[in-house]
């Protein structure tokens, strides 16, 4: 077993989740990539990446680290219930969002092109997170 | 303690000078020194020319301008017999005598540590057992456990160390013994290396040692073996580079005897001791570079950290 695979996710569930994420990226041409990881950095699922060059293992780990620091930063500034964080880049932006279900704490990362609108992207990712949460709850 | 001084070939003025100095200096020395006049039978003889004396007698020759120690028994104290040279002479004689008496005291401990270390190092059969006996009495049983030699004994550590340090021991192979665990009342188990370490540190050799450059390949098990405040620094220094005893003493603000004892302990505990001759110019082995401001800042931070946390080493 690859040590970075998560024992929480069965192969069947992973295939279904991959397909789910691919569906979202296929439907929204501004949404370039999606990854779902456990809050402690294991890959759960990811969409195809156009270039095929993304290291999904590292991205999963980095997403969880970002979430971890974001939660603490929010607490430190007296803000509660951190929901997500945004990274702005010249070529686009990344949004990280927490996905909480029974049994799994997960982090959803969306990579958006620069043509995307911030508000739309936030709304899109929020809905995807909700769908994934429902999917995982039902699947369980 | 009383000690005697006599003279050979001194004139009246010089003899008067000696007596006058003693009146002042006897409050500044550990012993009380008595001047006996001209004769050959004293602890210290002051003379103008080299003379032949017994091995226990010290000789001080009025020669040259300054105090100079030729060896442990022979000195030059300057023709003018200055009081400070005289004081230095008496103190050095007293220190030597104290050292020599401790040498005799520490000899059984030194021998015991060496014997134990050598015996275990040369025992190739890790299944074998041995005993340490004093006369007919078995002090402890030795056995190997997971590659490390241990001693099983009824004596607590302090008592075991005392026995090893004060008696003549013999080591001999024995039949296999049943190793009783520490739950068994009154049975203690100690690592041989821990005992050798503690013996070597507590009872250092005071023989003059040849200073060389030393380096160790393995740190001692500090915290498990007996640990003194200066040991982390000594281990760090000799673990990373060759250094002399003088450098070790300077770095840790401890005595050269303590550093020598530490290095002896490292050697006897098989910590991969290596030696090199001192450089010819006898200069300090460490680089004489101007310290950078970064280094200075770091040193200051570390000092602050030690102070804040109350860590062992203090060398203000």
């Amino acid at each position, binding site marked *: 077993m690859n040590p970075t695979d998560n024992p929480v996710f069965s192969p069947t569930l992973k295939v279904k989740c991959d397909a789910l994420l691919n569906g979202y990226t296929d439907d929204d041409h501004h949404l370039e990539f999606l990854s779902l990881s*456990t809050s402690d950095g294991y890959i759960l699922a990811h969409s195809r990446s156009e270039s095929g060059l993304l290291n999904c293992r590292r991205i999963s780990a980095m997403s969880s680290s970002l979430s971890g620091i974001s939660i603490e930063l929010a607490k430190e500034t007296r803000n509660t219930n951190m929901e997500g964080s945004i990274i702005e880049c010249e070529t686009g932006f990344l949004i990280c969002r927490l996905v909480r279900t029974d049994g799994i704490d997960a982090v959803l990362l969306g990579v958006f092109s620069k043509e995307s609108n911030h508000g739309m992207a936030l709304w899109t990712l929020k809905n995807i997170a909700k769908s994934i949460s429902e999917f995982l709850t039902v699947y369980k | 303690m009383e000690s005697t001084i006599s003279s050979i070939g001194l004139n009246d003025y010089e003899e008067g000078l000696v007596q006058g100095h003693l009146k002042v200096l006897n409050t500044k020395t550990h012993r009380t020194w008595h001047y006996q006049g001209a004769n050959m039978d004293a602890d210290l003889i002051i003379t103008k020319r080299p003379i032949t004396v017994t091995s226990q007698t010290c000789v001080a020759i009025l020669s040259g301008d300054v105090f100079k120690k030729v060896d442990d028994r022979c000195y030059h104290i300057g023709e003018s017999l200055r009081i400070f040279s005289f004081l230095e002479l008496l103190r050095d004689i007293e220190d030597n005598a104290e050292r020599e008496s401790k040498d005799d005291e520490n000899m059984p401990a030194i021998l015991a540590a060496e014997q134990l270390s050598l015996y275990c190092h040369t025992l190739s059969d890790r299944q074998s057992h041995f005993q340490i006996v004093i006369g007919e009495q078995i002090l402890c049983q030795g056995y190997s456990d997971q590659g490390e030699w241990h001693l099983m004994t009824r004596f607590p550590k302090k008592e075991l160390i005392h026995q090893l340090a004060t008696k003549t021991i013999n080591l001999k192979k024995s039949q296999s013994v049943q190793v009783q665990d520490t739950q068994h009342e009154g049975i203690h188990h100690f690592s041989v290396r821990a005992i050798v370490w503690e013996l070597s540190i507590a009872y250092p050799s005071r023989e003059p040692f040849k200073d060389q450059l030393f380096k160790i390949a393995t740190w001692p098990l500090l915290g498990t073996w007996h640990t003194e405040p200066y040991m982390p620094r000594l281990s760090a220094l000799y673990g990373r*580079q060759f250094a002399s005893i003088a450098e070790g003493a300077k*770095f840790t603000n401890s005595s050269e005897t303590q550093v020598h004892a530490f290095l002896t302990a490292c050697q006897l505990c098989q910590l991969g001791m290596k030696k090199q001759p001192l450089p010819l110019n006898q200069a300090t082995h460490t680089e004489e570079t101007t310290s950078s401001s970064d280094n200075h800042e770091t040193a200051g931070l570390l000092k602050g950290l030690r102070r804040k946390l109350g860590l062992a080493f203090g060398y203000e």
Partner: protein
Amino acid sequence: MNNGKKILFIGSMGAGKTTAISSISDDPPVTTEAMNSARHISDKQTTTVAMDFGRIYLDQFDAIDLYGIPGQDHFDFLWPILEKGALGAIFLLDCSQGDIPETLDRFCNAFARLRDNNAIVIALNRTDQHSVQRCQQWLFDNNLTLPLILSDPRERTDVLMLLELLIANVEAELFSAGETQ
């Protein structure tokens, strides 16, 4: 306040890094814990996902920062980031977990700069004589002279001893460079 120097706490998940920092930090340490989904590796409820951060204040101007790395391999991208500027590392090794030589290899290679400067203190927890021997043998085989000490990360006095050894090493380096105090 001036920027302080840094001491790193490294080791596998569950070795006690967060605990060790907590035992000596002046401020309650910042931790980045998330639910541990790999209970087959370590039976802890949570695990560090970014870093732990603590601080020891020396005076009103100076402080020493304490950083704990996340121990799992998939967070190794953070290790060089956290290593920058570190005076040294305290390597906590739980001898009841995993393969000791393999763990020693992994972390000593990952922090090679500190290893090569003798600036790693190896602290063994849940150990026995055999584990101590294996560690000593590994050090010998790899020609390394690093301090090895038995220690419980929950005990403040034990963690202070680890700091003592680390400080001694840095001081030895400074002494070699001609900085004496």
